[in-house]
């Protein structure tokens, strides 16, 4: 008994969670991560137009934000763009995930995997510049200057994020289920529609949510690609902050934060759902 407890103690003294200083570093990290955010949220309810002195609780800045026509406009544009781009990205990602998990290994499969994940590796600035030049050429040729460029750019950027949870889901799915459906007279389309799709749906929704948050949040690519009057919420905020700083920005940021938290929570719930 004594031997065992000594061994136990020795194991414990090697434990990484008990290294001296670990707790301090962890605490510092949390402070760095959350104190600025908490401050931002708290001052969004400030009655004064100050970022440093507390003048009592008020919803003035939220009211101001809601009454700001420009804020409404860029918010709607951001949401619309996020839904459309993430929706398209999810569709493409679903097909890509099916192709990479449901076929027997084919030549160049690893290559395709790398290509799909390209946006995770290439710096956003590079993608931004590349898209700027590329789209400028198209604009010259066609004269088109609508939202299409932003939709394409965001879709491409969202695909790998949507792809990962869908692929993870498909990989845990039992292949004999689709075989059983075919055996029971389901055509390939029916097997997909009645068996594969419902079972992969949580992964697809998780992929959509992740893509949605990524699109909502991305600044660099939007900044390069957007035409005049195509500001999204983040690029608008950036533009405003360069001129003046009011707690109205805090209010908008807080709402933005709430939306992201909800979407990411849905993502986690869906991706942890068992097959």
């Amino acid at each position, binding site marked *: 008994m004594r031997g065992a407890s000594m061994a136990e103690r020795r194991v414990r003294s090697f434990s990484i969670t008990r290294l001296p200083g670990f707790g301090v570093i962890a605490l510092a990290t949390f402070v760095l991560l959350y104190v600025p955010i908490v401050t931002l949220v708290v001052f969004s309810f400030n009655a004064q137009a100050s970022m440093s002195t507390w003048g009592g609780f008020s919803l003035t800045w939220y009211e101001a934000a809601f009454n700001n026509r420009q804020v409404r406009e860029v918010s709607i544009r951001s949401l619309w763009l996020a839904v459309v781009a993430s929706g398209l990205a999810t569709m493409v990602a679903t097909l890509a995930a099916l192709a990479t998990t449901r076929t027997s290994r084919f030549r160049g499969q690893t290559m395709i995997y790398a290509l799909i994940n390209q946006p995770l590796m290439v710096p956003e600035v590079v993608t931004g510049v590349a898209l700027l030049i590329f789209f400028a050429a198209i604009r010259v040729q066609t004269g088109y200057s609508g939202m299409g460029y932003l939709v394409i750019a965001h879709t491409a950027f969202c695909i790998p994020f949507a792809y990962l949870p869908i692929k993870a889901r498909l990989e845990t799915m*039992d292949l004999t*289920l689709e*075989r*059983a459906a075919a*055996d*029971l*007279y*389901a055509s390939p389309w029916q097997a997909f529609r009645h068996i594969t799709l419902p*079972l992969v749906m949580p992964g697809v929704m998780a992929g959509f949510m992740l893509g949605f948050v990524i699109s909502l949040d991305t600044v660099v690519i939007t900044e390069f690609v957007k035409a005049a009057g195509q500001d999204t919420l983040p690029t608008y905020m950036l533009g405003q902050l360069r001129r003046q700083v009011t707690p109205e920005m805090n209010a908008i940021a807080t709402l933005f934060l709430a939306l992201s938290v909800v979407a990411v929570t849905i993502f986690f719930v869906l991706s942890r759902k068992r097959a």
Partner: protein
Amino acid sequence: MATPAPKPASTPAPGARVTEIEIGALSKTFGRGAQAFRALSDVSVSINRGEFFTLLGPSGCGKTTLLRLIAGFEQPSGGTLRIGGREVAGLGPNQRPVNTVFQNYALFPHMSVAENIGFGLRMQRRPAAERRETVDRMLRLVRMEAMADRRPTQISGGQQQRVALARALAPQPRVLLLDEPLSALDLKLRKEMQSELKRLQLETGITFVFVTHDQEEALTMSDRVAVMSEGRILQTGTPEEIYNRPADRFVADFIGDTNFLDAVVQDITATHAVVRLPGGARLAANLPAGGGTAAGATVTVVIRPEHARLVGDSADGPADEGAVLSGQVERSVFFGTDTHVHLRLSDGTPFVVRRQNTAAATPPPEIGREVSVALAGGAVQVLRN
């Protein structure tokens, strides 16, 4: 697209044999070039309508591959495959009147028990009323009425097995394929499901093609058995034929315990031969189908331990009546209902005699004793070389 509903397999008139599955020189090679692997070679067999047909063989012999070819999950590399008189090469699994019970059941986790059972009918676009009626009948057939609304994860392994059976039977296929469906169950449940399967097969009249590596399961359940090894069918026959008249050393060895002896053919007719056993005794022996031996040839013969008897072991009968072999007792192993007496024959060959343990039975002969062995009529079977 849903296939037209396959006609329910009608029970054949007594004595009438209708072929349901006709397999001719079927082969299957996986991979290409240096990695090519021949999983099935030259498999020919015909399976009758309404038959309980078993593919028996050790793991890796190609049983699953043959079943997958019949189901349409794989396409053959060569040969013909006809189901209900129709060549099915090139047809997908959804176009064949064949359903499968998968080894891991493969129940759809997002559907209830009733929805699982009704899935095949739904894909065939049968009318809703007929679907409901069939699902209810299937639930009763496998005694799962009370579980109709449960999900597959909410029922036990044995119950999942029964749902998988009901799901495969519901569209009334011509043929039901079962790939080792009982191997995941414990012994008691397995025995129960064996008789359950047999009952379902008799009640539905559907042709069952059953895969197992368990020889006892094959013998007790089947109308006919095909014994497979290394991608080939070695022998096809009723359980009695397979057991009593094995054609081949592998079959004899794989099924039950047996004794192998070298013998010399003395005289030969179409179905029988006279062979000389080690020790000089001359005996009538059965020839395998196809013959293939000649007078003077050395052959291997098999004798089942229960077809042999120690001379003078019972109270009645003269001491040397019918004695054909002699040897020395090496050991005795008690098995409850019987005892195996292991002998070493005069020429050094091992030989086992099975001794029934009746209430009045005398103890087995002690180790080292010289004994003589007599054989039941028809006990000697000549193997194909």
